[in-house]
């Protein structure tokens, strides 16, 4: 499994080193990680995350299949629970024989991650954990239980 979940902030240098070294003999020509770091904004002291792992895993496996079909592969790490300012909560990476495939894949993957991965974000502010409703996206196909019957 190339999907790793950690309690709290990610150790970015260690994860990038591990991923790079694990594929260094695999004859990929391009390796593009994406690292997301908690910004100091809106008076937060950090962010906190809930993850629903069964669906995250099947979502990730579907993307791994898409990557394989292009000769590429993906890896991903994400934090559970609280992550403080300037710590990182998310890393994903694509390995690919070819540069263009890698550049396009990391963009598509990160955007779908934002729109579809079953992860919920909360602002840590004044000692409270506040759902980041305004920055959240309804998963495609949402709302069926609210349909007029």
């Amino acid at each position, binding site marked *: 499994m190339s999907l790793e979940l950690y309690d709290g902030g990610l150790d970015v240098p260690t994860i990038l080193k591990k991923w790079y070294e694990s594929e260094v003999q695999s004859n990929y020509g391009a390796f593009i990680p994406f690292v997301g770091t908690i910004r100091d904004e809106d008076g937060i002291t950090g962010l906190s995350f809930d993850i*629903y792992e069964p669906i995250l895993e099947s979502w990730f496996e579907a993307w791994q299949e898409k990557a394989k079909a292009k000769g590429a592969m993906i890896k991903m790490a994400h934090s559970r629970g609280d992550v403080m300012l300037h710590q990182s909560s998310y890393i994903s990476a694509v390995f690919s024989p070819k540069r263009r495939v890698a550049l396009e894949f990391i963009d598509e993957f990160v955007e779908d991650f*934002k*729109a*579809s991965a079953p992860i919920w974000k*909360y602002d840590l502010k004044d000692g409270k954990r506040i759902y980041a409703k305004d920055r959240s996206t309804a998963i495609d196909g949402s*709302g069926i*239980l609210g349909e007029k019957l």
Partner: protein
Amino acid sequence: MIRVEFLGPIQKDPLELDITNLNQLAKILQEDKELSQWLQNSAVAVNDTLVSSLDVELEDGDKVSLLPPVCGG
């Protein structure tokens, strides 16, 4: 029995319901006022697979999950 779970920020304990399809579930949940803000924007999974319509039969032991709007990263 069908187990219904509310994920992420939906602050609600799981339900155990005696129903056989998602239409019945919709009818029950629409009567719950604290859920009104979530039903319009939550996705639905049956046994951890997302579904896109209410035309889904449920069997004893199935799990239904409500997934409100997401924001990873």
